């Protein structure tokens, strides 16, 4: 019961909590981090530094200066200047008094379709649902009702409501914005709630520590006593085991192999791995690299930070903006050189494609959004993936198990809910079984909060049942936190679709 934290797949960044090592103190903005990013916050409204009390906990403590990948060491990729100092982006939603009333708010005709899709509203009597959180609250706030209802904190940012709305009301954008306001204006920076958000949404910080001392960290984080303490003091549930840190990060593997092994002028992809594939599931990153190289792509792995997904979900928009700025700058530079951006985590691709343009106005955001793809989707568009898989020599019958697949909500939102099934169809000897369209319930950091644990597991019940019903005894998904939930609820080993491609096409990778 100690120390074994069986998490493989999950990523999106958010999940961590910590023993409080983040809970240091000091103020955030004067730290190293602001060197690269603070200029982003010139939001036309009040300078955000003023908004941040100096008592803010959780210093970025300089760790952040160590954004993975030094500028310029994009591992085999071309160069990409990180012009951190050159832009002066403007916030879309300048400040709380002048809320932008998006045209979308008015196109709500109250059909309630969004409400019927909300997994939280179905099981939680304290949550008013997306229609209220979005268009209704939005309208209210126009009438000078300044407070954001604190139920906004219960929304898990699964974005199912976005996908539901027949008239494209930008619900999740409203939620993200409202949550940001709520955290900025209504939450004490000294509160446990704030601290927990800070910790859960800044996974990369812990990730860097964890990967320096993976065994120690895994041991400590897996320790029941430590988990009990974080539960009682921080409200981070002790029901879950913290994801295990890999002994070698993806980036260190990448450097060790000497970066890209294939050069190409016209087939170039820049890989956004995010924190989770780097620190916890490097096998997913390796699978991506090997699969793309097998198709003759030159892969670049530029400097990058967390996609921001956990920060949006926790209302930490300033943190998210800083991370986004690094990512947009780095990837935009590569797009100039003919690269397309590919992600292995569907929440990361969702952030780059939809949330960045909705929430931030960073130079290059639109271009990055328009050139970002899910990795498997990219191959489906550009290669005859079906044919390649059908022709593959692998004896999948012997080597690969049948798989119970769960489509992450954020994959669904990108129209990708069934692509893994199609990939599975093409692999002879492997059955990929869809475990239904329910939400896994974890939604990133959501299910990590003690107060949401029950809700999270109640939502996940339907998926667990379907997994148990399926013949397959290995799970598959593209979202690291969904994978965590799948493992937590069923005890199955959970793999990534890219690993299936790797096993079939390249014949390398982790054993199945």
């Amino acid at each position, binding site marked *: 019961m100690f120390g074994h934290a069986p998490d493989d797949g999950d990523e999106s960044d958010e999940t961590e909590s910590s023993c409080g090592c983040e809970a240091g103190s000091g103020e955030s903005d004067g730290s190293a981090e602001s060197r690269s990013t603070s200029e982003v916050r010139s939001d036309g409204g009040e300078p955000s530094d003023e908004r941040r009390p100096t008592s803010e906990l959780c210093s970025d403590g300089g760790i952040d200066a160590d954004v993975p990948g030094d500028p310029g060491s994009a591992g085999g990729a071309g160069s990409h200047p990180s012009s951190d100092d050159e832009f002066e982006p403007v916030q879309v939603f300048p400040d709380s008094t002048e809320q932008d009333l998006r045209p979308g708010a008015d196109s709500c005709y109250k059909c309630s*379709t969004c409400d*019927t899709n909300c997994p939280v509203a179905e099981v939680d009597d304290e949550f008013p649902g997306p229609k209220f959180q979005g268009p209704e609250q939005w309208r209210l706030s126009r009438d000078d009702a300044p407070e954001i209802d604190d139920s906004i904190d219960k929304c898990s940012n699964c974005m199912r409501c976005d996908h539901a709305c027949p008239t494209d009301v930008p619900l999740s954008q409203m939620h993200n914005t409202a949550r940001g306001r709520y955290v900025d204006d209504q939450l004490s920076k000294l509160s446990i709630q704030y601290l927990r958000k800070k910790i859960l949404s800044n996974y990369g910080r812990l990730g860097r520590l964890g990967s320096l001392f993976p065994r120690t960290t895994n041991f400590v984080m897996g320790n029941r006593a430590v988990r009990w303490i974080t539960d009682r003091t921080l409200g981070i549930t002790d029901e879950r085991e913290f994801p295990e840190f890999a002994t070698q990060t993806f980036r260190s593997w990448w450097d060790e192999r000497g970066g890209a092994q294939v050069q190409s002028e016209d087939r170039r992809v820049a890989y956004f791995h995010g924190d989770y594939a780097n620190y916890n599931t490097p096998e997913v990153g390796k699978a991506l690299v090997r699969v793309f190289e097998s198709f003759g792509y030159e892969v670049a792995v530029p400097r990058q930070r967390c996609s921001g997904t956990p920060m949006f979900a926790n209302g930490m928009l300033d943190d998210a903006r800083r991370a986004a700025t690094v990512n947009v700058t780095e990837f935009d530079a590569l797009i100039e050189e003919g690269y397309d951006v590919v992600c292995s985590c569907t929440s990361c691709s969702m952030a780059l494609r939809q949330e960045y343009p909705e929430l931030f106005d960073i130079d290059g955001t639109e271009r990055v959004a328009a050139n970002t793809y899910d990795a498997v989707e990219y191959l489906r568009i550009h290669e005859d993936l079906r044919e390649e898989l059908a022709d593959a020599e692998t004896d999948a019958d012997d080597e690969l198990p049948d798989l119970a697949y769960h489509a992450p909500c954020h994959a669904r939102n990108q129209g990708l809910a*069934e692509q893994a099934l*199609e990939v599975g*169809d093409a692999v002879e000897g492997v059955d990929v079984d869809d475990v239904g369209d329910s939400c896994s319930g974890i939604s990133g950091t959501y299910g990590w909060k003690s107060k949401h644990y029950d809700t999270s597991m109640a939502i996940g019940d339907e998926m667990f049942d379907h997994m148990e019903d399926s013949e397959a005894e290995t799970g598959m998904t593209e979202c690291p936190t969904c994978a965590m939930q799948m493992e937590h609820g069923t005890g199955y080993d959970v793999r990534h679709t890219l690993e299936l491609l790797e096993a079939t096409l390249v014949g390398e990778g982790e054993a199945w």
Partner: protein
Amino acid sequence: MAIESDVIVIGGGLAGHFAAIAAADAGKETRLVTANQSTLRQASGLIDVLGYPPAAAVGETGTGDAAGDHASDADSDRADADDPDAVGEENPNAVDAEDPRPDAPFRSGPIVDPFEAIPELPEGHPYERVGLAAVREGLATFDEVVDGYVGSHTDANALVPTHGGVAKPTARYPEHTAAGLASDDRDAVLVGFETLTDFDAPVAADSLAAGGVPFEVAGVTVRFPGDLRADAKATRYAELLETDEVPAPKAADGGSSGAATHASQGRSCRAAIVERIRRAVGDVDVDPERIGFPAVLGEERTAEARADLADRLGVPVFEVPTGAPSLPGIRLEHQLGDALRERDVRVADGRPVVDVSATDGRVGHLVVESAGGSTVPMAADSYVLATGGLVGRGIDADRDGVREPIFDCHVPHPDDRYEWFADAAFGDHPFAYFGVDVDRDLRPLDAEGEPEYANLHAAGAVLGGYDFAAENSGAGVSIATGHAAGSAAAEGS
């Protein structure tokens, strides 16, 4: 390269689902691409084929004859299978243009037998385009694919009471509503829940009684067990009724409660409701032989919840279809999703088709837009356009005119915007008829009456020439034309 298949259906409503089912059943590799959820979750879940004759103004949009010709004189207060004469007799006066149609419970002329009325429809009406046989085929497919619906034993319309106290003429209805039919003479009590304000049982009961139903009916309102929020969702009621749980009272400290996973120990939600109903029924004059609830009796295990309630109450129990959000619509959506899965139809939902490439009068591929604006090409031999009408956004109307946004198919409409609307709020608005004109293979026609593309077919509310709300034909037209368009697309691929 484009992601390929034999047939691509655009749109995930009833029409799109039935098009995909037909194409897949014809042996084609089929893909369904849809932007958002359809209107299914808003609709009653009833499958209306034709409830009322088309209004007199069809001719105004240039899509057909004056439809008053086909009005029925059946002004008995309910359609009756034994009275086939009620339909088809010409009586242009039966339709009163001032009649506020959507509200009048038993207005003149509900159609008794839609299959007798269909051959009489004006040219250009979607049913006229596909023909009676195709309508029957579509419904036969519906009966085969969807479980738990009743009505296939007869051609005649049934009258199903809805939440507003209106008896709706419909061709297929969920078995859960079956005990509620307005033609049934067993006395009924309708039960509403205080917090579920969409269904006011006493008002609905009064309205049914005023409409002249052949039974005694009264409504009672009870409190739903547990501490539900005032605006709890229909899905929340369904969840509690299905799991038979009573949510735990909120923890006083606001601590780690909230989630209502822990039922209050051992309390049965359904038992508590039944107890309250027993008390409430004592106060009304009707001794119920059946009891109706708003249609929130579970999402996946409705049969179980309903049977248990009936058991406890000692009389049959039925659901009264509600407005949006509609559990019967959600259940139907689940079943149709399963049907696609069984047929290996691949669904890409969550992204819109924004453009097409075409050469030589054929659609080459579709351009599907992802969040963020990157695009994915998808190609097939034939395509079905099932993007809905003004509500589903298959048809766009703005100051400059009315368009079909993906293929830019011709949509006939008066140039003068003031001619789009009738004077009366509930009048027979020409805009309700807006949509693409099609040939008998359901191919959209250009302004000259020629097919826009050889390999494009259209189905459902994107079609012009009918007003589904006024004539109660929404689901029927979508199923019939969806099935026909899917079959035509399969043939052409």
